[in-house]
């Protein structure tokens, strides 16, 4: 019996080191649904037990019927073992919301702030020059102008801006095909 005690101790120690990383004790449960029986109303029982203990006898406490009715009652109950990972859910939702937030901020910047800033920096002359999109209120409307202006200094910042303008032109082409000319994806 000493040996079994040591074995159990070693097992729990191993589990503490590993299990705490992988699952919260709250993340496993055994859910037993018991329908109404005679004059006892239906009940749901939850307990954090492991898979082998997930049956009516371990989970349904306190047992509402005695002695010989227990078997009949337990036969009508259905017990399911469920586990989830609450950390995964938390991390996923937070990552998704941050990506969504970043995209929304970038969208607000592109549609509202950038035209305002450009208008202040370069005056009204640049906007009048936008070639075929006269009166175009869409984002990236003056991508052509910016592209032609930036041929001077080939440093890192310019390369990034060049790539960004190229992307904007692509998006504008796509937008024309899809929304204006209805050529693709109608």
């Amino acid at each position, binding site marked *: 019996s000493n040996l079994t005690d040591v074995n159990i101790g070693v097992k729990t120690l191993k589990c503490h080191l590993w299990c705490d990383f992988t699952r919260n004790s709250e993340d496993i449960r055994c859910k037993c*649904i018991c329908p*109404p029986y005679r004059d006892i109303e239906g009940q749901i029982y*939850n307990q954090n037990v492991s898979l082998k203990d997930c049956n009516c006898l371990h989970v349904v406490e306190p047992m509402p019927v005695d002695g010989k009715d227990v078997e009949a009652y337990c036969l009508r109950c259905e017990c399911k073992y469920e*586990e*989830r*990972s609450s950390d995964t859910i938390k991390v*996923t939702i937070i990552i998704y919301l941050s990506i969504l937030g970043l995209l929304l901020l970038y969208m607000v910047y592109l*549609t509202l702030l950038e035209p305002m800033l450009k208008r202040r920096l370069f005056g009204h002359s640049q906007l009048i020059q936008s070639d075929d999109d006269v009166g175009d209120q869409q984002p990236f409307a003056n991508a052509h102008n910016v592209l032609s202006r930036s041929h001077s200094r080939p440093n890192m910042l310019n390369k990034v801006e060049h790539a960004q303008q190229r992307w904007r032109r692509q998006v504008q082409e796509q937008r024309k095909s899809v929304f204006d000319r*209805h*050529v693709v994806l109608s």
Partner: protein
Amino acid sequence: MTFTAQFDDVLTWSGVSAATPTEEMNGAGNLMDFLDEPFPDVGTYEDFHTIDWLREKSRDTDRHRKITSKSKESIWELIKSLLDAWSGWVVMLLIGLLSGTLAGVIDLAVDWMTDLKEGVCLSAFWYSHEQCCWTSNETTFDDRDKCPQWQKWAELMTGHAEGAGAYVLNYFLYILWALLFSFLAVSLVRVFAPYACGSGIPEIKTILSGFIIRGYLGKWTLLIKTVTLVLAVSSGLSLGKEGPLVHVACCCGNLFCSLFSKYSKNEGKRREVLSAAAAAGVSVAFGAPIGGVLFSLEEVSYYFPLKTLWRSFFAALVAAFTLRSINPFGNSRLVLFYVEYHTPWYMAELVPFILLGVFGGLWGTLFIRANIAWCRRRKTTQLGKYPVLEVIAVTGITAVLAYPNPYTRRSTSELISELFNDCGALESSQLCDYINNSNMSRPVDDIPDRPLALALIFKIVITIFTFGMKIPSGLFIPSMAVGAIAGRIVGIAVEQMAYHHHDWIIFKNWCRPGADCVTPGLYAMVGAAACLGGVTRMTVSLVVIMFELTGGLEYIVPLMAAAVTSKWVADAFGKEGIYESHIQLNGYPYLDVRDEFTHRTLATDVMRPRRNDPPLAVLTQDSTTVEDVETLIKDTDYNGFPVVVSRESERLIGFVQRRDLTLAIKNARQKQDGVVSSSVVYFTEDAPQLLASNPQPLKLRRILNLSPFTVTDHTPMETVVDIFRKLGLRQCLVTRSGRLLGIITKKDVLRHMAQMMNQDPESIMFN
């Protein structure tokens, strides 16, 4: 020189792969030699053009032969050849991992955001309703959804949980959240990636048949489609996420193709990877790996070699395994509506199953016609100018009409899951409120026929206007919902008939009074399969997906009966499914392998130039100048030009592509001295005999296709269409006794087929 001549005979396509032995042997300091270098960008394709399948295949064979021959040289080359062979499997593994991860993220986020419209979890805001009440001990048998940690908005804001005021406030906030989500979705699509809208499957079918749409499978499209799909589904609109998940998976496929030059430089090989990625997409959408592979084979892919079959299966399995390890639904199931009952069905039930099949076929026809008419209206009238307003309006109408009916208030996946489930003693769903138990006496009025019928009509109507809007939208889930509701209604009807008339002959044999002999959940499944089959015209893949979804192998026969019936009924009204109809609406150059061409026309009836047209624009083999070529390119917009011996004899030498010509001449003008507008362009091996005073001639044999496909003028069009389909040709030359008569392009073939089927031949837009 004899060595090079021998190679020229052997190589049927002196195409533009990397350095071939021809130029390595041509050591003589010929100034024209650096023309043999691969031109920049030659061999790539322009946007909205079709690829040349034969050229891609022969390039891949060249590459493979080169690697195999080099692998005998050293150990390093051997390792490189092994890595090249394994790169396909690595790409499949990466696609499976990324698709599974993205599908898990989408599922978790949709779960949370759908519940956000109704309330919020106070203990941890990132939990959905079910997750919030997971650890709670206050759930009761009758109200197993309620727990104090999760509160509806009205309760949170005013403190009242019940009452008219709380209902109105909840209603109002539901509409507000739905509008906010859909507005964000359509704005993001519009600003960042306009190609992320729609289902994606028609365009992917076209891409896989050889069409190029640049940016359709790009990184921004991937990001925006993932993010906005969650928003679109959470806003309560009548759309699903299966079609968009196929698009997402193909974007992942495209992303990983760019890591390996074997796939990034070869459009034909890339499409093999995309076929497998589509299988992975369906696999994570439904939790059906085998169904995914069959769906890719049947619906999406154009050419599906056996090698792709095994690799698709691998990708689908890896994706399904990744999704399972993320475990979004908390119980190790891949899909929300996995049902586990095994109650048997009876032969007499085949009659209602076949009736459900007929319903599915009729609904499919109605939906396709109505949706295409609405999309055409969106394409041609003022409606198309206000995409954002349209999305907001449809969302508003959907939210206003959906909230009062408890069946449409919740997300469509949950509705389907509830409809598929059998009513046991443990079910607390409203669908089971009428259970006829001889112990209990419940009024028969509790049969939920009115809300279910209203939900059915609502879903039928609203899906017509939802599919095709400028947000990611799929239609598997709405079709299955329509079918499931109809099936459940029929199932309840049959069940009631069996209960009240158990002495009729039909029921006497298999129904004892008081016993459950009819499973309405099974009828819902069969109805869902019938409607999905009627709309998409899937056959084998539908049945496999349905039984992988439900785990009910004993229900194969009812599912097949319904699927076959719905396909027959729907095909009687129109041959095309929803995806082929959308391809036709957009005018993509898609030559369907299923269409049969049974008319008796000849090649000479279809070829161009016609009788009144100007003569064919050709180049001669050694008497055209650079200036002539440039004028020809500027004045016409043909994609390629045949090369003949001379204008008198008109015997065919080969075919040259417009893009290759343009780039070659531009390159030659920039890099070579002596090439001016009056330089002669020659396609022969040796330069033509010219006076010394003439400027230097330009050799363009490198870009000439020496083996264009030709047919004679009396070839039946049936054969020509077959050749185009099987070989993936873009154009075919027509000759008579060796003389060039004309050209047939893929567009001409499609127009001819449309004309033969009395459709509008002008609707074929692309080349």
